[in-house]
């Protein structure tokens, strides 16, 4: 586990939103699993930290939750994206892309004009 990266502050919410957008309504365990898989198991995610983050998104109105039954018949709370959540996701994704693009330009090996 030592060479795994911790989740950066503030990015967990974006990952959660994107995961729900991709997979549709999903329970907390599923979201955690999916984030780990998507990162190619490079991210170390304490599953417990996901729940306060989900609560925060729900309080902010980005996601909504309801009880349902999982694929192997376990009772679970399913989270789905709201319209506000979709907007938030689009905006956050765009911001993030811009940030990474800028950073990428800085870090490109050939460099810009000297």
């Amino acid at each position, binding site marked *: 586990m030592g060479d795994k990266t911790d989740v950066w502050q503030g990015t967990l919410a974006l990952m959660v939103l994107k995961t729900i957008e991709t997979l549709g309504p999903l329970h907390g365990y599923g979201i955690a699993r999916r984030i780990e898989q998507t990162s190619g198991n490079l991210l170390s995610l304490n599953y417990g930290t996901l729940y306060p983050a989900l609560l925060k998104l729900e*309080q902010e109105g980005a996601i909504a939750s309801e009880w349902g039954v999982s694929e192997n018949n*376990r009772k679970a*709370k399913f989270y789905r994206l709201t319209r506000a959540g979709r907007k938030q996701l689009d905006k956050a994704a765009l911001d993030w892309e811009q940030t990474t693009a800028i950073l990428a330009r800085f870090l490109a090996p050939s460099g810009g004009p000297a």
Partner: protein
Amino acid sequence: MKMLRALVMRLTGMVPGRRRARERELAAEIDGHLQMHIDDNLRAGMTPEAARREALVHLGGVEATKEAYRDRSTIPWLDHLLQDLRFAFRQLRKNPGFTCTAVFVMALGMCASVAIFAFVDTALIKPLPYRDQSRLVVVAETAPDYARAILSYADFEHWKKLNHVFQSIDAYALNGGFTLSTRTGAEPAAGTRVSAGFFRTLGVVPFLGRDFYPGEDSPAASPTVLISYAAWQKRFGGTNEVLGKTVTLNGSPHRIIGVLPRDFHFALYGLAEFWSTLRSSDSCEQSPGCRNLLTVARMRDGVSMKAAAADMQVVARQLQKEYPDLNGELGASVMPLRDAIVGDIRPILLVMFSGACLLLLIAGVNLTTLLFARSDGRHREIAVRSALGASSSRLFHQFATEGLVLAAAAGSLGLAGAEWGMRLLASIVPEDKLEGMPWLRELGLDHRQIAFACGISVVAGAIFAAIPWLRVSLPSLADGLRAGTRGSTGTMWQRVGAKLVTVQVALAVVLMVSSGLLGKSLYLLLHVDTGMRPGHLASAQVDWLPDRYSTDEQTVALERRVLHKIAALPGVRSAAVSLTHPVGSDWGTTGFHIVGRPDQGLHHEVISRQVSPAYFSTLGARLIEGRYFADTEDTSKPPVVIVNRTLAKRYFAGEDPIGKQVCYAWSPQTPREIVGVVDDIKEGSLENPNWPAIYTPFDQNPAGMMTVLVRTSMAEKAVLPEITVAMHQIDRDLSVHDETTMTQRINDSPAAFLHRTSAWVMGSFAGIAFVLGVVGLYGVVAYSVSQRTREIGIRIALGADPRSVYQLILREAVRVVGVGTVLGVAGALAASSLIRGLLFGVRPWDWPTLLTAITALGLAAALASFIPARRAASVDPVEALCAE
């Protein structure tokens, strides 16, 4: 928007019902999460045990998750605060005795200080209703021994021309007062005459109509008048039609040109409904020796008070050279308008305020003692709680919350009490005194007082919080868990508690001595020798229309009819008239010189009164030598005067004044022979030393106004209404006012009023301080007894007799009271030299007062320590030893 929504959700998350539902839901969700994870792990081939452990590890602990979730679902600090508040209320409810005492003591201290602060604020801090008031000054003439002398119209004109420092300088007449003609006859109306620029100098703009225009005070201009807002409402129904209406004042018609703003007041003059203009043609204004004016001036920009005073000195010297006979000794003084208005009451207010602060301090010290005692009792509770895992900051928060709850309760109670106290204090100010202190009408809680109260509450809250906290953190917490550690905590408490009580006793002595001195001053003031017998003496001022009695003969005839009519009233033994009543203001002075003296030409300002022959016998004055005036002494006889003892002593030291001749400054050609010397009558204000005075027969030198003095054989109050009726029988347009008895006049005089108020206020402060100090002492001694029950039990069991037990307990009390008293006496001496200016006839180191205060405190202290000592001496050794 998002944040707000989240905040609302978190707030609603704190509702207890929601909280439980959320807990259940979270438990179910985490349970489902673990189950799914375990299922997956099993499917991956782990053993059930490993699968469960891996799921738990990956989650990061069930309780930690729940805790993080909880923190996010509510607002943690608010949640803690609510918990602390609930806890504080529970603690305070459990201990109603402590809570009530603490809140009450603090509220009391606060109530007193806030109420007095409100007075200080309204009188000394709040702006006056004039524009740019810091540039306004009062310019007055000074004579030797006479700081604020009254100005003649001629001098006013000279000052206007000669000064270089004032933007404008304007005058108002002190001898104001109008007779207003109404349909039902004449009635007195308050008001005075001012120079045309008076309101412009003050920066006051009429609320309706216009101001006087420059030159409107010249004899050529037709008479006009401005009215006060109150007069507009009361007499003219508050309509706009009032402008242009004509009122008849002193028999001549005046056109109303404007209404002054509602908040306008001019405390130096007092109540005024009508403001007309000064006229150089008026009799007093025409005579250069007649002094009736005071001035208000606005300094030019950049001119300092010092520069203004220096310039006025130059002007005064110039006038001395030019008019040596009239302005011989006269200088000029400049003082800020505010000082002139509140100068008298400032020291009293400041003393009262200091008294209130001392009381607040005593209350604070008293509370500190209470808190110490209480925190002792809680020592073990706190040790247990911290052993169970309460963090030290959490413990502190709890103490702080408890302190703040106490302080807030005391603060709101104190504020309510202050509001009530202010009303009480304001209501004891009689209506006529209110005219001199118009700002008191605006008395009430405003943001400054509330800020002041909040400041006190915060400090109090900090003390409330800090004391138990210090008490807990100083000795190590673990000590508290051991039983029987009372020895150590007890001595600590006794040490600090005894010191605090010492402070309380000292402060109580300071307040008691100060109030004792003020009370004694009041007594001496009310019993000062007025040179007359004030019982069975009544007086009333009578004004007449000047055009109806324009010649001296007419005035004399009127005076004789008045005296005749009043002497005939039932129960009247004798009657007299004088220019104005004794125990009045220092108004009515004149210059004089002694014929044949080398200093002839120098100016001596003395009190001058025109009196009828019976004046001295009616007042019950004491003749020292010579004779009183004869009934027949009028203008047909040689002019005579009577002087008082002070004048005889000052100007005829070692000589016999009888037979000497004096001249008034305004009639230097008429020498008047001194025929009698009378013992000093208190003509001026009660607290001032007696002034030289000259009396002339009214019939030789009739005045433009008079006050009737009546000695009665029955209750003097009953004659007052009859005087009015009798005057109206002579002339329907005579107006009678200011009718009162001499005793009342003395009791209500401004000096007596100020002394009485301060003596009462300080007296009640001292009373409260006394009770708090004694109760504090009782608390300390009683506590020490309760802590030493076991020790005393052992002593008694070993054969100690009750006397030695008494000694043991009382020794401590005696030390506390002794040290407190010594400190208190030192403090009282310092304090009383600070209030020296307020004392009348009593030295700051008045031993009887000091001894009385110490004796009273000593007796009460003896009682307060005797009760617990007796309990100690009657301790049953068996019971005491079994108690543990």
